[in-house]
């Protein structure tokens, strides 16, 4: 039993944290979030240069990147490219991604039909659709990729609460597409990868909420005392800490289970997604309360993290959807056989 990341994985974490602190101070994140594009496309090349887009990275390396980019609230289509589209890409797209020239997302909700190599129909709620170069579209006839740089008119932007990860609508009308050799079974793997990623990212968001709450309650004074000395405030901060730790344990377990194709991987990602994303929302809400009025303003950065937490909670079903899967595994097995 060993619950530690390797030295290489820890080095990746340290360099990610340094890079994000250096290149993405929170005022820049806010500026990008409020810009039309929602991000700086130059970022993509920097991520490629650091090896973050390398197709060889495994689920544990992704766990590290997810947590750190959640903590830094990096505006870039990293989640969409690596966790959603990644497992479905072919060699051409994969090497384009690794070189920092292509980026991708996955469009799965809605009816799309294929006729030869052309697609028609609408896919809704597509993450980062306005930021990526390609979109992967699974259909009953196989998995396709649409080059959005060649067909920009199929993209409709949708106003999204989390302005650092916007949702778009894909409107295909006899649009040329390229067939990928990925099988639809790979979507199960995508699901696991993306749930593990979302869990780790939520842990990073929650950790940032904790740090912001701790920093503020250590210095803010009321009635002649630092507010962190009041137990009504400090216990709220302790509750955030507890939530962060529990979510982190589950998120790492889930990432490990996915990386090893462990027998428990499906319930592990369900547990992690439910606990870590609800934990991130809980952490942000309590951090807002600990800040008082300033925490409720647009000016303060907290709502940016809060909205990312809510995005993650909403992704692939709120907690109860995942708990229903767990209930099936725990309650519907043979008598005496419980997934413990």
């Amino acid at each position, binding site marked *: *039993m*060993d*619950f*530690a*990341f*390797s030295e290489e994985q820890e080095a990746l974490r340290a360099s990610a944290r340094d890079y994000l602190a250096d290149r993405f101070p929170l005022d820049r994140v806010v500026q990008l979030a409020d810009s039309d594009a929602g991000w700086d496309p130059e970022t993509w090349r920097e991520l490629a240069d650091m090896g973050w887009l390398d197709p060889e990275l495994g689920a*544990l390396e992704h766990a590290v990147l997810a947590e750190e980019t959640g903590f830094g609230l990096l505006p870039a289509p990293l989640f969409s490219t690596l966790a959603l589209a990644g497992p479905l890409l072919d060699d051409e797209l994969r090497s384009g991604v690794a070189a920092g020239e292509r980026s991708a997302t996955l469009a799965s909700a809605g009816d799309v039909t294929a006729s030869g190599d052309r697609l028609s129909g609408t896919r809704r709620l597509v993450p980062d659709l306005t930021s990526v170069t390609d979109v992967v579209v699974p259909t009953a006839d196989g998995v396709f990729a649409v080059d959005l740089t060649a067909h920009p008119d199929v993209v409709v932007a949708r106003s999204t609460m989390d302005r650092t990860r916007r949702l778009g609508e894909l409107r295909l009308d006899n649009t040329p597409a390229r067939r990928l050799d990925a099988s639809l079974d790979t979507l199960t793997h995508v699901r696991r990868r993306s749930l593990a990623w979302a869990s780790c990212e939520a842990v990073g968001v929650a950790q940032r909420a*904790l740090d912001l709450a*701790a920093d503020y*309650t*250590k210095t803010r004074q009321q009635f002649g005392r*630092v507010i*962190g*000395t*009041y*137990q009504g405030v*400090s*216990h709220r*901060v*302790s*509750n955030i*800490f*507890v939530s962060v*730790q*529990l*979510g*982190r*344990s*589950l998120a*790492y*377990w889930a990432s*490990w289970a996915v990386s090893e194709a*462990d027998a428990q991987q499906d319930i*592990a990602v369900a*547990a992690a997604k*439910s*606990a870590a994303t609800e934990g991130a929302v809980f952490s942000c809400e309590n951090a807002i309360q600990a800040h008082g009025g300033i925490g409720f303003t647009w000016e303060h950065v907290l709502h940016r993290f809060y909205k990312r937490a809510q995005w993650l909670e909403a992704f692939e079903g709120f907690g*109860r959807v995942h*708990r*229903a899967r*767990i*209930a099936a595994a*725990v*309650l*519907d097995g043979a*008598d*005496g056989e*419980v997934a*413990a």
Partner: protein
Amino acid sequence: MDFRDTPEEASFRTELREWLRSNLPDDWTERPPTVGRFDIDLSRAWSRKLYDAGYVGITWPKEYGGGGLPHTFQGIYLEETARIGAPDHIGGIGLGMAGPTIVAWGSDEQKKRYLAKLLSGEEVWCQGFSEPGSGSDLAGAKTRAELDGDEWVVNGQKVWSSWAHIADWCILVVRTDPEASKHAGLSYLLVDMHSPGVEVRPLKQITGDPEFNEIFFTDVRVPRDSMLGQPGEGWNVAMTTLLHERGTLGFALTAMLERAVLNLVRLARLPGPDGARPADDPVVRDRIAQQWIDLQALRFTNYRSLTALEKTGVPGPEGSVAKLHWSETNQRLTTLALSLEGLAAQLDGEGAIWDGYWQYQQLRSRGNTIEAGTSEILRNIIAERVVGLPRSR
């Protein structure tokens, strides 16, 4: 990162499973869980069996009767015994608190005298820390010990002492120097509970059972050398006891919660008061799944803490959440279980489901957020020592 058993761990687990199966009654797993009340004779006999098979003090040094194995083996022991619902060793306080403190602070003579009998269950220990005027505030202890020749003379009162009514020995925090500052005046005695002047009065809990006790000491004479550390070192010795309690507690708490979750699942599969199985009710399913998640969160947080302990020698900060999380989770779980029984939830004896197991568990769980550090104290500790907020007092 790897959560699988090593080959050594796997064979330890297999052997333990076989041992449990062949030493527990054949129909053991079909029996309803026992209510939770303590059967001393059964527990003592079982403790001896465990000791003879080498399953007690798994991580303790070999020279004092332990197994000399890493903490993961203790974790496996607790997992396997929880899953099959095996009885507990009789000496919980001895194994978790007195023993490790004697290992850390005791003389060779003391270790030889106490440890083997503690492991075998021959001698049971209790803890004399809390007093009527100092529950969470240990350094406020007023029970006094004065030197008279070669003996300490102890006078005072302790409270909330689990198992004192069956204990042979007590780890006792006393004030030996009333002039010294609060912490510096304390010492740590090992007291024979059969000494003249020791009186134990059971405290009936809200379960109706006595588990905790008051202990009154009236001119109790304790040999001068029956002390851990030097006079005035009592606070440091007591901190060893409490740190050890919190350091290894995670596995025990995970095991207890796992047993509770398994029993909850078992209950949910029985027809409820309206004939329907609670396991088919979507609201119940959601809440049971949440309990299962809370269990896994405790398990893997404990693993993380243990990894930090083995790599750096100190448990990670995440370990501080274990007891807080467990206690509140266990309260939710037992309350949920009772709610599945309808009005039958009020029956607590004959005719009750499993003879009142959940009635006992639910009431007992209210103590979980009070004993061994109240949730309020634990939140203070997290805020101040882990997150680094300024002290509230």
